């Protein structure tokens, strides 16, 4: 069967219009390749794209690992991972970074005991899923408010976590970073770097209190029920994006990266298990 249009979902982190704009070239290429009308959608949160994939109203998206796991758990037949972003250093991982204000005297998880701790979005891998599993392993206590931390909150997203810690609304929080480069710059890329670039925070005021094991970058997924040739064409297009059009790849990959490489569901089984664990 043929498709009449192709719909690409884009996840947040940047101004909606900027996101649409940096993916505009991808839209044009897709439309050329598939010969059908192609549209971009940039809902406000992870859930919007996930619902779209589940409901069959979005055909391709670049999800976070946790978001992929959620999709998989809701309906294993909905989507399949095809590609993952590869960093300049050849890896495809990043880190969840725990941080606090320097002047609060907190410099480690131990010092956070009894303090207020903030996660980002519940569907974020680095902002919630991984830390919510690895931090209890480190502290030996659960993440329930009052158990180890005085209170555990969701701030809503990486940006909000950073601002909340910086303002002192919460004592410590987690966000993502590539773990490369200098702390003072907020690493080479990630939410901290963006905040620094925006002049929102001064990294001199912050300290790192925790760092996760590497987290796999989220996959680019396609809806399983798409026709095979569409899947093949789109996989090819995404994989060769960097070599075809550097400028476009920069926008789509949200920065400098080596490109995409193929990946399968197996790479995310750990995350799926982790997520299952967190469901009550």
């Amino acid at each position: 069967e043929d498709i009449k249009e192709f719909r690409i979902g884009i996840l947040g982190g940047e101004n909606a219009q900027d996101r649409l704009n940096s993916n505009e070239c991808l839209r044009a290429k897709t439309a050329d390749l598939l010969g059908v009308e192609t549209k971009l959608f940039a809902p406000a949160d992870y859930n919007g794209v996930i619902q779209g994939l589940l409901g069959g109203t979005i055909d391709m998206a670049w999800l976070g690992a946790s978001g992929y796991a959620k999709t998989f758990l809701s309906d294993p037949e909905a989507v399949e991972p095809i590609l993952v972003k590869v960093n300049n250093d050849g890896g495809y991982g990043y880190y969840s970074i725990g941080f606090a204000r320097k002047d609060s005297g907190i410099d480690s998880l131990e010092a956070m005991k009894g303090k207020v701790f903030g996660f980002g979005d519940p569907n974020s891998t680095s902002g919630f899923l991984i830390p919510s599993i690895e931090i209890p392993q480190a502290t030996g206590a659960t993440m329930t408010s009052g158990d180890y931390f005085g209170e555990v909150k969701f701030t809503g997203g990486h940006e909000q976590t950073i601002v909340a810690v910086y303002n002192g609304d919460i004592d410590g929080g987690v966000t993502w970073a590539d773990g490369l480069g200098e702390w003072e710059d907020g690493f080479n890329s990630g939410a901290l770097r963006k905040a620094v670039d925006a002049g929102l925070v001064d990294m001199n005021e912050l300290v790192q209190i925790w760092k996760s094991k590497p987290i796999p970058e989220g996959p680019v997924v396609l809806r399983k029920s798409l026709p095979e040739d569409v899947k093949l064409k789109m996989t090819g297009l995404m994989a060769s994006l960097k070599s075809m059009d550097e400028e476009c790849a920069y926008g789509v990959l949200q920065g400098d990266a080596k490109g995409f490489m193929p990946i399968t569901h197996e790479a995310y089984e750990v995350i799926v298990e982790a997520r299952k664990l967190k469901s009550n």
Partner: protein
Amino acid sequence: MADLTGGVGALRADYMALTRRKRMMDGIILAIFVALMVSGFMIADDRNAGGFWSGLHRLFDFPKEVLGEAVEKVDTLPAHFVKFFPSLVETINIAGASTLIGALAAMVLSLLSTRGMARWPRMIPVFRRIMDIMRAVPEIVIALVLIFVMGGGPVPAMIAIAFHTAGALGKLFSEVNENASLKPVEGLQSVGANWSQRMILGVIPQVSPNYLSYALLRFEINIRASAILGFVGAGGIGYELKNAMSWGKGQYDEAAAIFLLLFATIIVVDQVSSHFRDRLTHGKTDRKVAA
């Protein structure tokens, strides 16, 4: 007699012309409306990720998923109710406090912007524009800005809702004021009462039942608004609902419990307040006005 039929003939012609004109106007208006609706629908349908017709059969997928899990874990619901009750109280408090503060501000603003009552009659247009602007700002805008400045929690939501409420109620209140009699005010003026005395004694007693009725209606609306603001980080039950909802499978039982709590609250408040409003405006025509 011929003259008479001629008269009737003229009347007939006039009326037919009138009817034709009216029919044409009706037709044009109807056509414009239908065209707007149809083209609007088509644009929206086109801009949407999924189409209307193709998505229709999936309408119940999501409720089914949520209900499925909720039914499966129905025994956890009472525990969830207890767990989320404090958040519900917070949501109600946000609505209550903001309605109260908003209504007080609206009272002053409306008195200042009603002819015959205004403290500074020349400033009436200024206060009116202020109310228009306060009314036009969606709560979420103020809430988001305030969350940025002072962090999450109930206060930004309270301020945001109170701000909007002041504008919305201010307009309704000033309509009420306009129907109030100025005679008592003049009577009080003649004894040398100052402005606040004239307002407290001369106006407020006349208008308070209507004020109260509108404020109650607003309270209903504000409960919903404060739940919504929870979605953007302003605390209360909306925050819990958003977290449970967006986590998805695995926490849908929580989502269902929160939803039931919220829904029950809205219904209860709605019924209680409409009962009181009926009593307050008993006999008068109660013009229900939108948010």
